[in-house]
């Protein structure tokens, strides 16, 4: 079970800035544990952000992205009170979706 994301979204009237902090181990699959066995890869593969249901960002993540990733982006439009929804899927099929109201 993945922990919740921390999402902030703020509109200045013409564009909306979204800041997302994800809680994820992001194992690369290259590291070894104390006994020398390879730690299996476990990382986010896809991330989608929607604004009132419309996709504003779709991203593919790989093992090069850091643990507990931080993502920041802007999209045109968006107003206070709108909903921004962010969801990700990892390579083990684990999912997480969180929603925030634009400030």
């Amino acid at each position, binding site marked *: 079970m993945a*922990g*919740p994301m*921390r999402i902030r979204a703020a509109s200045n009237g013409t564009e909306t800035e979204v*800041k997302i*902090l994800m*809680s994820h*181990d992001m194992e690369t699959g290259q590291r070894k544990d104390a006994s020398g066995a390879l730690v299996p890869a476990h990382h986010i593969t896809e991330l989608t952000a929607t604004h009132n249901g419309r996709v504003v960002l779709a991203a593919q993540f790989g093992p090069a992205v*850091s*643990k*507990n990733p*931080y993502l*920041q982006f802007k999209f045109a439009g968006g107003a206070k009170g709108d909903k921004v929804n962010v969801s990700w899927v990892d390579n083990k099929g684990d999912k997480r979706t969180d929603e925030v109201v634009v400030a």
Partner: protein
Amino acid sequence: MKNSTYAACVVASAFMFATPVLADATAEGIAKYREALAEGNPAELWEMRGEELWKEARGPKKATLEKCDLGQGPGVVKGVFVTLPRHFADTGRVQDLESRLLTCMETLQGIPADEVAKTPFGKGEQKNIEALVAWISAESRGMKFNLPMAHPEEKRMYEIGKRAFNYRGGTHDFGCVTCHGEDGKRIRLQDLPNLTKGPDAARGFGSWPAYRVSSGELWSMQRRLNDCFRQQRFPYPMYGSDVTVALSSYLGVTANGTVESIAPAIKR
């Protein structure tokens, strides 16, 4: 041949850093990097969990920590971080945030304190403590340290902490003071705060707990101190032991009234 080229490079870079202007530019660059990191400080993820944990009924007694007295009355969290360690009448001890949390977890929730203290960092209940200290320290962000020094025990712990800080020993004749007793020192690119002086002590003491980017972990003050002992080649101190609390008392009192706390900060 290769070696001599390498040596020449090292000499050249040593000269570069000797030039004050460039040294400032380097420090500025590092400061910018830190700023960029702080924008998305994952310590926030711990803060969120800590706030939930505070209100969650847990342990054999199925109780929350909402009646926990961190020094400003039961349940008060705002501003307590900058007043700890302090003397608590109910335990008769000077306690830092973490040893006080152990007391609360034991008395309110029935979670045995000595077992939590024995748990390795980052495992089991210690994980929960990380989240709790992240949230509790965040509730004092932007406040200046204001540790009480009225009680004789508080004065005693400060003096013990001062002695422990200046105590040199072990295989390398190290003490805290070896690295943290002078201005303008650094190890590689890490600036070392002079913890014997107010503003630096506040910058050092007031940034832990912190998220460490290199390991992706949140380190509490106890864990930070534990690692200082390791670096000095000293035996590990017991979790929440008097010597660690005394060191925190010394650092906190030295930091009093100077620079605002930024904990939980983000570190390389």
